[in-house]
């Protein structure tokens, strides 16, 4: 659980650091979003029952959806 806290602290501060170094806010969020992928994937490690369905979908399906959504969004924010 400390891992999740640390990961969130990293992406929050990373975004602030990029802004303070003059990176565009949208591009900063794109780079930050990339680092959200390992953070959200590590959340699945905390789930006690891996076979449990979350809102009707397996954890593997949610992981795929999350990675696709965040990755596509990050691509859209970068340039």
């Amino acid at each position: 659980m400390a891992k999740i806290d640390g990961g969130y602290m990293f992406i929050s501060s990373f975004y602030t650091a990029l802004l303070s170094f003059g990176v565009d806010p949208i591009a900063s969020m794109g780079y930050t979003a990339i680092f959200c992928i390992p953070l959200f994937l590590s959340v699945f490690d905390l789930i006690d029952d891996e076979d449990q369905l979350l809102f009707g979908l397996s954890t593997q399906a949610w992981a795929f959806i999350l990675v696709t959504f965040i990755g596509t969004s990050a691509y859209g924010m970068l340039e």
Partner: protein
Amino acid sequence: MVKAIPYHPSSTHAFTFKKSTKDTLLKLRGGDLGPISSDALAKTFGVLAIGDAVAGTVAPIEVWDKFGIKVEPGSKGEHYLGHGIGSSASSLAVTSLLALTEITSIEEAIGYGILTRCAYMTEMLLTNKYKELGVPTTPHISIYLILLAAAFGLVSGNSDYVGLAKVVSIVLAGHGGLLFLNPRIDGKWHTCYRCDLLVV
């Protein structure tokens, strides 16, 4: 002669002059996703951070339970998944949305974001929660005062404090990154755990 090429399919400008490739060689390249602008995508992530902030602050145990993650009330896990995530998510949401909507300047947005994190640290100080968690008083208050100084300097419009914001954000990012990569909090890594609680 420079040939005019379409810059991006979703661009409102039909044609633009060819860009120099020098600026983009070392960058990850992307752009708008069809009708969804990059600005809307960035704001979406800011709004999602609001959800994490509210969930972590108001009802972390109930929310995590819906995702199949059991958190003991009053445990350190509740602190990490509640107070800790609420603090970072609030800071990210405030900073990103103020910067993206251009309600404030970038410097002020950074300042308000740090100020939001300070609010959570203030709560820890006022309730003496940091003592219950075994956090040393002097480092905790020192970091708290540095964050407050950076926040008030930036919010008051003094751009000289951007340098302090760079240092503070790099330190916090480094600390968070190390904690993510090596979150072992028992045994010989107990020191890392105590350090983590200095900044929530």
